[in-house]
């Protein structure tokens, strides 16, 4: 049977509601594709082969904007009845007793969760090679990484298994894999949606993000999951606009900021050319390109790896073999049990970050590292505030290079961290960002550009992304694709 999930949500919805196809058949087709392609992609850690098609039947009858739409969820977001491993041995087969708020909202709209996607352990990584369950492979070239940390979700959308998937973005973990896999990826404004039920990594940075193959699908899903949640005190009391209604229309006069300083050293030639071509498209569409300065952006990786590791060392203290997950055998005393459980349960990158975080927070170092990083973070926030006085959005590459080879950077954590150079600033400042596919490299690997906006400017980002998408549709398909 031909896969039914390669199209967008609106087309699928109209086919289901006209009776041309049943929701059950759509979800079954998605599950089949997930199972078949997982052999080459390793994108899913759990596929709900039996439950998902059944739920499709009951849920579709209830209606809703996503009735019968199959969706994949990163394995660090809690879905009742399924596992949440966070890509880690320490959680393993953990089954959460509740749904994340974003899941509750998707289910209320009729979505059907078909499975949990592979990711870097506790969302720590840029390549997906830090999963305890093996790396996800890029559907465009299975010898390459899909990007991280939400690589399984990105690969599942790129391969046509699901039209939409959720991930989490702490330093670029939605936008980077979106660009490596040739799909759209959004990190919303800090506080736009709830993290209740998202396993915490860096609490002042984490946001749930969305992958899809069109801007419209990203916008539709954000509208459903966004908004205040009393279970997450960081969600802001800001009305959720009708994102879809504001999608179309011309962008004449929109001011797009170009930070020349970020187009310098380390940026790959093909990525530069591709992003510059996108800038030219915007100019042709009537946008005004203005120069902006982000003088402190060069320090963002340094700030990020102090703040994110400090918060991680605190958040991950809860994994101690007492209340859930894995416990090491053969430790006669409590303290020894903690130490052995964490030694055997965590992988190398998580250990490295917990130790770095513990180091920067330890007595005598706190001010020099954490305090200093928070001050430079304030300067970065201020850079953006000033920049958005003269423009509506800022354009950058999403990543310095297209997807790299599996194994290429595993022995050099610092080189791996530098992949996030364009994305971490948005998490530090709390602003939204979207990665938009804008072409292929000479060896057929996707390239993406990123649009960053002021707080709550998702409508502007969608409008700009949609204008580009309409002008330059990205219709290329990867090597591994649902047939």
């Amino acid at each position, binding site marked *: 049977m031909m896969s039914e999930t390669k199209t967008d949500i609106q087309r699928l919805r109209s086919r289901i509601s006209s009776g041309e196809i049943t929701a059950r058949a759509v979800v079954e087709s998605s599950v089949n594709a997930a199972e078949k392609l997982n052999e080459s992609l390793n994108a899913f850690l759990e596929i709900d082969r039996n439950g998902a098609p059944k739920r499709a039947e009951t849920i579709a009858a209830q209606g809703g904007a996503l009735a019968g739409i199959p969706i994949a969820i990163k394995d660090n977001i809690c879905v009742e009845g399924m596992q949440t491993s966070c890509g880690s041995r320490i959680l393993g087969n953990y*089954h959460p007793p509740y749904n994340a708020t974003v899941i509750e909202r998707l289910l209320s709209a009729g979505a059907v969760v078909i499975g949990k996607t592979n990711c870097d352990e506790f969302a720590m990584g840029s390549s997906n090679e830090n999963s305890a369950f093996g790396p996800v492979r890029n559907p465009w070239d299975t010898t390459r990484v899909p990007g991280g940390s939400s690589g399984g979700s990105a690969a599942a959308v790129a391969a046509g298994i699901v039209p939409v998937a959720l991930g989490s973005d702490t330093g670029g973990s939605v936008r980077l894999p979106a660009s490596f896999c040739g799909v759209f990826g959004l990190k919303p404004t*800090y506080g736009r949606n709830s993290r209740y039920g998202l396993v915490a990594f860096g609490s002042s940075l984490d946001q749930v993000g969305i992958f899809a193959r069109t801007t419209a699908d990203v916008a539709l899903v954000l509208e459903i999951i966004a908004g205040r949640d009393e279970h997450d005190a960081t969600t802001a009391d800001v009305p959720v606009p009708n994102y879809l209604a504001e999608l179309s229309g011309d962008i004449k006069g929109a001011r797009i900021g170009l930070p020349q300083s970020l187009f310098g050293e380390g940026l790959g030639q093909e990525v530069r050319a591709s992003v510059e071509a996108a800038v030219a498209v915007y100019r042709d569409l009537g946008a005004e390109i203005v120069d902006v300065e982000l003088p402190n952006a060069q*320090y963002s990786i*340094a700030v990020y790896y102090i703040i994110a590791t400090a918060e991680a060392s605190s958040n991950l203290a809860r994994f101690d073999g007492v209340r859930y997950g894995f416990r090491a055998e053969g430790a006669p005393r*409590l303290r020894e*049990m903690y130490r052995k459980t964490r*030694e055997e349960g965590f992988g*190398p990158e998580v250990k490295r970050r917990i130790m770095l975080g513990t180091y920067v927070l330890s007595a005598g170092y706190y001010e020099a590292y954490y305090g200093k990083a*928070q001050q430079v973070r304030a300067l970065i926030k201020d850079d953006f505030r000033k920049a958005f006085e003269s423009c509506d959005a800022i354009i950058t590459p999403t990543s310095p290079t297209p997807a790299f080879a599996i194994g290429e950077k595993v022995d050099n954590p610092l080189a791996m961290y530098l992949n996030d150079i364009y994305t971490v600033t948005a998490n*530090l400042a709390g602003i939204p960002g979207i990665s938009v596919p804008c072409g292929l490299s000479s060896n057929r690997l996707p390239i993406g550009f990123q649009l960053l906006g002021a707080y709550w400017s998702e409508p502007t980002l969608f409008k700009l992304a949609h204008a580009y998408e309409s002008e330059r549709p990205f219709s290329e398909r990867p090597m591994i694709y649902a047939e």
Partner: protein
Amino acid sequence: MPITEADVEKVAQLAHMEITPGELKIFAPQMADIVSYVEQLNEVATSNVPPALGGFTPEGEATDSSRDDIPAPSLGQKKALAEAPDAASGHFRVPKVL
């Protein structure tokens, strides 16, 4: 000041993590590299800059997150213990403390 193997052993202990001699040999130089990279922040003048506390937006800061103090059902003992590696008699059982 470069991070030494002794520093790494100390932080592993603070973080309740056992660390093998093999890991120590790998982690110490990697962490030293990362710490020396982040020390580039010392070149930024920040003496009058108040630290940013989180990624909060002004609207987020203004949002009242308190709720009325009304009792509501919680997870319950059975669900809360269901995923514990060693639950016994309604408790989480752990190895000897002393």
